C-alpha cells in the first residue's frame, strides 16, 4: 500500500521532469531567442552580447536547463521579458484569480452534477432523463468561447443584469471581483457539470444493474435506502478519477474563457506571454499547469486507493 503510493508519487515527478525537458527544448528551438525579441532591430553587436550575458544565454543549453530547473524547483522562474519583473510576482495574483474562478466553478459544479447524474440515472429513459441529457449534450459539446459569448450577449447585453467584460486590475480584492466572476464561473461550470453529470449517470446505471443491488431489491430493502446505501457509495468511487481528468482538461478551456471575459488569470497570461514571445514566462506556465494536472490526477488516484478496499491488495494498473 505505502509502496504503491510512493511509486505513484515518483511517477508524477518523472512526468514533470519530462514536461520540463519538453518545454525547454520546445522553447529553445523557436526561431530567435529572448534577446532578439527584446532588442528587436538593435539585436546585433555589443548590445546583443550584453543582453546574452545579462540573461545568461551565453552558456550551453544543457547548463542553462540545469540552472533553470534548480531555480524552478525553488519557485524562482527568472525574469519575464516584457514587464522586466520577476515571473514569481507576475504569476502570484494570476494564480490567485484563476484559483478563485476554478474553485467557484468546482464548488457549484460538483453538487449540481451529482444531483443531475443521479436523477437521470434513476429515471433512466423517462422524461427527466431525456430532458436533462439533451441539455448536457449541448452544454458539453459547444465550445467555451461560444457559450461564453452567448452568456455575454443574453445576460450582459440584452438583459443588462451583470457586467459582460471584467475590467479590474490584476491584484483586485476578492469582494470587488465577485460580481465580475459570475458569468465566467457559469461558463466554466456549465461544461464541467455536463461532463460529470453524464459520468455519474452511467456509473449509477452500471451499479444499479449489478447483482448485489438486485439482491438488495429481492431482500426487500426500501428503494431510497438501497439507493443511498448500496448504489451511491459504489457508483461515485470510479467517478473520482474522471472528475479529476475533467477538471484538469478544463485548464485548456479556462484559457479561452478568460480571454472572452478579459479575466486577469493564468489563461490570459498564456496568450499574452505567447503573443509577446515571453519565453521564460511560457516555460514557467507550462511547468505550473502541468504540475496542477499531475497533482490533481495523483490526488484522484490516491483517493481511489484509500477509499477502495479491493485495490489495497492489488497492483494498480498504470
Amino acid at each position, binding site marked *: 500500500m505505502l509502496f504503491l503510493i510512493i511509486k505513484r508519487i515518483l511517477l508524477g515527478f518523472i512526468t*514533470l521532469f519530462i514536461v520540463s525537458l519538453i518545454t525547454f527544448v520546445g522553447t529553445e528551438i*523557436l526561431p530567435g531567442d529572448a534577446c532578439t525579441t527584446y532588442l528587436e532591430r538593435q539585436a546585433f553587436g555589443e548590445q546583443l552580447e550584453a543582453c546574452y550575458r545579462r540573461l545568461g544565454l551565453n552558456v550551453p543549453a544543457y547548463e542553462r536547463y540545469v540552472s533553470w530547473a534548480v531555480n524552478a524547483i525553488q519557485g524562482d522562474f527568472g525574469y519575464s521579458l516584457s514587464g522586466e519583473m520577476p515571473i514569481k510576482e507576475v504569476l502570484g495574483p494570476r494564480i490567485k484569480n484563476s484559483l478563485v474562478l476554478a474553485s467557484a466553478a468546482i464548488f457549484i459544479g460538483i453538487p449540481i452534477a451529482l444531483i443531475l447524474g443521479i436523477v437521470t440515472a434513476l429515471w433512466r429513459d423517462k422524461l427527466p432523463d431525456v430532458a436533462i441529457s439533451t441539455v448536457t449534450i449541448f452544454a458539453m459539446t459547444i465550445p467555451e468561447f461560444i457559450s461564453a459569448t452567448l452568456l455575454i450577449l443574453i445576460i450582459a447585453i440584452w438583459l443588462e443584469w451583470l457586467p459582460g467584460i471584467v475590467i479590474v486590475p490584476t491584484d483586485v480584492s476578492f469582494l470587488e471581483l465577485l460580481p465580475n466572476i459570475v458569468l465566467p464561473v457559469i461558463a466554466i461550470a456549465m461544461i464541467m457539470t455536463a*461532463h460529470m453529470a453524464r459520468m455519474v449517470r452511467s456509473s449509477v446505471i452500471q451499479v444499479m444493474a449489478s447483482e448485489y443491488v438486485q439482491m438488495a431489491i429481492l431482500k426487500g430493502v426500501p428503494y431510497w435506502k438501497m439507493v443511498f446505501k448500496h448504489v451511491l457509495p459504489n457508483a461515485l468511487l470510479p467517478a473520482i478519477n474522471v472528475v479529476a481528468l475533467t477538471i484538469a482538461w478544463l485548464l*485548456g478551456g479556462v484559457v479561452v474563457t478568460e480571454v472572452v471575459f478579459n479575466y486577469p488569470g493564468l489563461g490570459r497570461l498564456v496568450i499574452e506571454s505567447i503573443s509577446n514571445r515571453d519565453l521564460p514566462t511560457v516555460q514557467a506556465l507550462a511547468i505550473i499547469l502541468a504540475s496542477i494536472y499531475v497533482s490533481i490526477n495523483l490526488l484522484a488516484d490516491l483517493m481511489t486507493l484509500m477509499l477502495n478496499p479491493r485495490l489495497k491488495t492489488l497492483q494498480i494498473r498504470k
Partner: protein
Amino acid sequence: MTVNSIYKEEKKSAFQKVSEVIITMASRPSGFIGLSILIFHIILAFISPYIAPYDFKAINPTLMLQAPSAEYWFGTDDLGRDVFTRTILGGRTALTITFFGSLIALLWGGLLGIFCGLVGGKIDDIVMRIVDAFLSIPWILAMLLIVSLLGTSTEVLIPALGFFYGKGIVRVARAATHDVIAKDFIVSARARGHSNFSIIWNEIIPNVRDAILVEGAMRWSWMLLGFSSLSFLGFGVSPPTPDWGLMISNARGLMSFAYWAVIAPIVGLSSLIIGINLTADAFAKALGIDRSTKAPV
C-alpha cells in the same frame, strides 16, 4: 452444403458491414439527427463555393452592419461583407483540416499504442511516460507554441493537431491491445512463429479497430473544438479566409448592436460539433463500445 459454403455465407463484404453499421446508427433518434447534421455540413462544404451569393472577401463600406434583409439574409459584418456567404463557407477550412488531422492522429496514435501494448517492457514504459508528459501539458499551450513557432498554414496545422490529439489514442489503443493480447489466437499465432508485424496486422488490428475508430471519431469533434478555439484566439486560419471561430471573434465586439454577425457562425459551428458528437456516440453504440465513462482526455 459444404463447410466452405457456410463460411462464405457468413462472410460479409466491407460495403455490407459499413452499411449495416450506418443503418444501426440511424435507427436511434440521436444518431439519425447527428448523421443528418453531419451529412448536411459535408454536402454544404462541397457545394458552398458554387451557391454562395456574394464574394466572401468583397469589402463594401456603404453596407456596414446591415440588419438581415431579403438581399443579405444574415445581414452584413463590420466590413460590409455578406454574413450568409461567409457562414456557409466558414466550415470548409475547419472540416478539412480537422478531418485530415484526425486521420493522422488515428494512424500514429493507433499504431504506437498497439506496438507498445504488444511489446511491453522497457520500451512501453518509456513511451508511456513521454505520452503522459505530453498529456499533462494543456493542449492549448502546446498548440499556441507550435503555431507561433511555425505559422498558421495548413501544412503546419494538420500535423500539429494530428500529433497533439493522437497522444490520447495511444492510451486507448494500448488498453485495447492489452485486452486481446492474452487471447488464444494471439498465443497460437506466436506459437506458429509469426513475426510481431504479422501479429499486429492479422490478429490485433482487426480486433482493436472498432475501439480506435470510435476514439478517432470523438477526437474529430474535440479537434474541431480546439481548432476553432485557436481561430477564435487569432492563432488559427488567417483572415480574410471565412472561418467560424474567426468570424465570432471579429463580430463579438460589435454584438451589442449587430448580433446577427455573431449568431450565424455560432449556429454553424455549434451544429457541426453537436452533429459529429452525436454521430460518434451512435457509432460507438452501433459497434457496441461504451464510452460514457470516458473523460475528455
